[in-house]
């Protein structure tokens, strides 16, 4: 048995709801036009950024596009341990590991793909990574022409132009081995 109630008289008039909504919109619009942002009392107006000349500055913890960090010698820091791929709720990270012939490295990713269209930018991968190999950088304007450009590979994630040669990871192998841990 369904519990559909008879609509009350006020609710049956749709116009009342519409006018209330439009009222709020127009009052904000007029306030923004009249009052300039930034005068002394708490301004209610929204600051307008003239994008792209003026860009909004996000905080340091902003979770934008992923960055794969590198070691001091430029090689990729990721050890293909699959923790990020496991922790990712959207399951959009695909890694294939391979054996490296340098015995101190032992394992590194041959391919590391993030399907950025599936990614929800939650940052779980950053939290899961034991060696600070993946970070979520500050960039967020990422447009591309066709769908396949949105699956980022190692070359894009670690060595794209904006990174200027790759960002060095905080957790580095050499110090850890020298310290004997």
């Amino acid at each position: 048995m369904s519990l559909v109630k008879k609509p009350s008289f006020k609710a049956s008039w749709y116009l009342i709801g519409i006018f209330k909504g439009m009222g709020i919109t127009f009052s904000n619009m007029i306030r923004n036009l009249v009052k300039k942002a930034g005068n002394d009392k708490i301004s209610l107006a929204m600051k307008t950024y003239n994008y792209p000349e003026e860009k909004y500055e996000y905080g340091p913890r902003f979770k934008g596009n992923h960055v794969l960090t590198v070691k001091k010698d430029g090689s990729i820091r990721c050890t293909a341990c699959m923790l990020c791929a496991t922790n990712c709720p959207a399951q959009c990270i695909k890694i294939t590991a391979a054996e490296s012939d340098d015995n101190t490295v032992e394992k590194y990713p041959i391919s590391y793909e993030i399907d950025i269209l599936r990614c929800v930018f939650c940052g779980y991968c950053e939290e899961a990574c034991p060696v600070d190999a993946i970070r979520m950088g500050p960039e967020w304007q990422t447009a591309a022409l066709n769908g396949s450009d949105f699956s980022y590979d190692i070359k894009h994630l670690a060595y794209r132009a904006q990174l200027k040669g790759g960002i060095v990871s905080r957790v580095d192998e050499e110090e850890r081995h020298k310290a004997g841990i």
Partner: protein
Amino acid sequence: MLKCKINGQDVEVAEGSSIIEAFKATGQDIAHYCWHPGLSVAGVCRLCMVEIEGNPRLQIACNTQVQEGMVINNNSDKIKDAVKWGLDFHLINHPLDCPICAQAGECQLQIQYMKFGQYDPEMAERKVKKRKVVDLGPKIVLDTERCILCSRCVRFTDEVSKTNELGIFNRGDHSEIGTVDDRPLDNPYSVNTVDICPVGALTSREFRFQQRVWYLKNETTVCNGCSTGCSTKVYFNEEGMWRVKPDHNDDVNGYWMCDEGRGTPRFVNKDSRLLSAWNGQKDEGQDLEAGAAAKAVGQTLKKVVAEQGSDKVAFVVTGQYTDQENRAFLSLAKDLGVKVYHWVNNPEKMDEFDGLLIRGDKNPNTYGLKEAMKEVGVGSPWSELESSVSDLEYVVVAGPENHFAYSDLTDKVDLFSKANHQVWFVAGDHDVLRAASNKVSLIPTKTYVEKDGTYKNFEGREQRIRRVMTLVPGALSLTEASKLMSGQELLVDGNVSESYRKTNFFSSNERGYL
């Protein structure tokens, strides 16, 4: 039978069994590294501590015999503290290798740490550095730094494979597992040491970085590598089958399995499989739907037998198929009245046996096939086929799944290409078949992990195999093919074997417990 009380639960145990066996019998949880049911007792990891009433000191469970009326508990705080410190001693010189270690996910140190450890590391001094990534031959990679010196692998090479290759060299905390002068560890059972190694010291070169273990699901089935019929655990996920491990079966293989049997993924995975039926000659031909191809072959066979007589067609069978498949195929041959020939792949090595698990007869079901042929009343000597093959119209072959054991595949194809037509029910995609001189039609069949059925091993012990996954959707099992060839329709049977029920990928996966 001895009666004792474990953690408050009454237990009946056989005479002379140790406390840890009593724990295992009741399924109670006890931390242990060096004890293994299939090996002798070493008593060196000192983790399986239990408190026995009337005995002030903690006793190790693996070497203490159960006495009548013993009251044992292992969940008191004293035990938890003892196990925590036992684990601490194991971990102080253990390298922080989890990201690059193949054993991560099923490593006993990780499991026990989550249960008993959960502490911040107290050791501030330098760890002992030992040799890493030691090459021990084609199958095993050794990392002596991760080794916790539980000596399971040494006892294995001394007691089971009896090749005495491994030893613990040096003394104290500089002791290292290894072979003399880094000689390869290469006996036919060497990969068993990888299974029983509780940590990532011994890793198998084949599976080393292929897949993370928590992505794999596992099912128990029977190995089709040879006629011993060992019980095995198959590890798989969507992309295919990654590795095979032995499952405990006291009557057949105990806790062990040979290295050959671990090679089954090579002929099961998609890259070596025949994906769809094919009709054609000398590499030119077109792909077909498997079901339709089988029906077409069925009709032409009936036509040929009706017009030219049943001696124009020959059936060839191998010991690779289950009992149900054999009966269906043989009864089809009986109805058509054609002769059936048994293709024996290596007659001279048939009754070889290496004393433990490896047998010369590389077919899982030769016993079942012979039984079925006697029961259905078919079967003629192979020489007859060799003489009469050239004037045969059709040769229908139930080809081998495990083509690695069938080294004589090429010359059998040449033999059959003397006939007019040859029809192959085969799982693998072999170029030699497509390049045969006469008209060929190939029909993909399922491998042993994709079908239900029973094998009979060398002593006639019937063992069930189950459908674990579907790798080639179009493939047919021989029963289905025989049904189609005899004209019936394939009804989709309602009861999908419940082992393949779609469950949550991660939670259903049981960590690899030793």
